[in-house]
């Protein structure tokens, strides 16, 4: 049976640089990130080149993705949050594209590595903290001090609030990573059942139709999860940005 973890292996393609005695390689993960970014750029630049008043098919898709993200951001962070639209839109498009590419057989799923999702979540976290302090100064710390609390348990509650805040990038990144990893392993395992069963002659061939049907069903489920997780990542980003703009009210 094929190793279900094998699909997540990082392969070094060619070295780029050597920084501080550490070899920096161009890996298959980096290759798929480049493919995703190139694909998004080609899609957006190509579809908006016509600038038709009545949009064609591609321009319509670009406009829908813009309005989808803009609507999500506006509804959770208000029109002030539109300052962060470039960041949120880039995150949404990147994660969606990378997830969708990962569903195609023989490709590599970039978001199935926690280092990638942690980097994305920390980007959001650092942005929120930096902008919150820049915008609100010390008032940003009011996020950790809920109002209407008796003074004798306030230190404890504040400590818990701080820990709750620190747990954000963890849950933000683990959710995307775990969903992609688990989904792809499940697909691989059911695909492995098909090949194993088909080794048992006619009965095996008949039995193999069951996991095959499940694989087909799971693939469509994965398609949904790929979009849904990108959406959840985006909406959480919007909610955190809202905290940075309007802390503690």
């Amino acid at each position, binding site marked *: 049976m094929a190793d279900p973890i094998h699909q997540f292996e990082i392969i070094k393609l060619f070295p780029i640089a050597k920084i501080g005695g550490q070899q920096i390689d161009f890996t298959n993960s980096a290759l798929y990130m480049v493919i995703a970014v190139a694909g998004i750029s080609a899609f957006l630049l190509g579809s908006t080149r016509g600038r038709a008043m009545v949009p064609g098919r591609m321009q*319509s898709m670009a*406009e*829908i993705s813009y*309005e*989808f993200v803009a*609507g*999500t951001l506006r509804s*959770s962070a208000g029109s002030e949050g539109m300052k962060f639209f470039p960041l949120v839109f880039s995150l949404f498009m990147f994660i969606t594209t990378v997830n969708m590419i990962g569903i195609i057989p023989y490709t590599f799923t970039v978001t199935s590595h926690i280092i990638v999702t942690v980097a994305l979540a920390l980007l959001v976290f650092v942005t929120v903290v930096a902008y919150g302090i820049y915008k609100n100064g010390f008032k940003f710390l009011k996020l950790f001090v*809920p*109002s*209407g*609390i008796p003074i004798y348990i306030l230190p404890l*509650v504040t*400590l*818990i*609030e701080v*820990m*709750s805040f*620190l*747990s*954000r990038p*963890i*849950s933000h990144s*683990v*959710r995307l990573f*775990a*969903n992609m990893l688990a989904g792809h392993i499940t697909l691989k395992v059911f695909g492995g059942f098909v090949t194993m069963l088909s080794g048992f002659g006619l009965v095996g061939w008949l039995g193999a139709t069951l996991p095959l049907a499940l694989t087909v069903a799971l693939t469509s*489920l994965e398609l*949904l*999860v790929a*979009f*849904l*997780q990108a*959406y*959840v990542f985006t*909406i959480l980003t919007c*909610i955190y940005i*809202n*905290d940075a703009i*309007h802390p*503690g*009210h």
Partner: protein
Amino acid sequence: MSDGTRDNGNRTDPKTDEAALSARLQHLGERLNRNAASRPAETGPGAGPRSDASAMARGFRLSTELVAGVLVGAGIGWMIDYGLGISPWGFIVFLLLGFVAGVMNVMRVAGVSTGISSAGVSRIGASNDERDRAGPPTMTK
């Protein structure tokens, strides 16, 4: 209907024709508004397979929130032990505090009023919860 308007245009001055047209436009606008108002109700909780999928996403969210809280508590406790050399007390205390933080995260995501959180936080939790249940907004123009 088209016959009526053409007759109108032939017989009377164009002003009434315009008035009839604007009245029809207004009527159409009202009907569209009514449709738009009824749409969110259709995609409410328990509307087809999409709500199942977002329920799964919700479940994942709840579990990761709890685990993240405990992990942060354990990490802080371990670092305090390492720094101050009071092992294992920092770990024990902060693991429990982390558990509390995780439970608070979960309650917030689930939209349960925690009683200690500020109005703003519970509002965010509630609106987020609503959105989770309804699934992503439909991608239509």
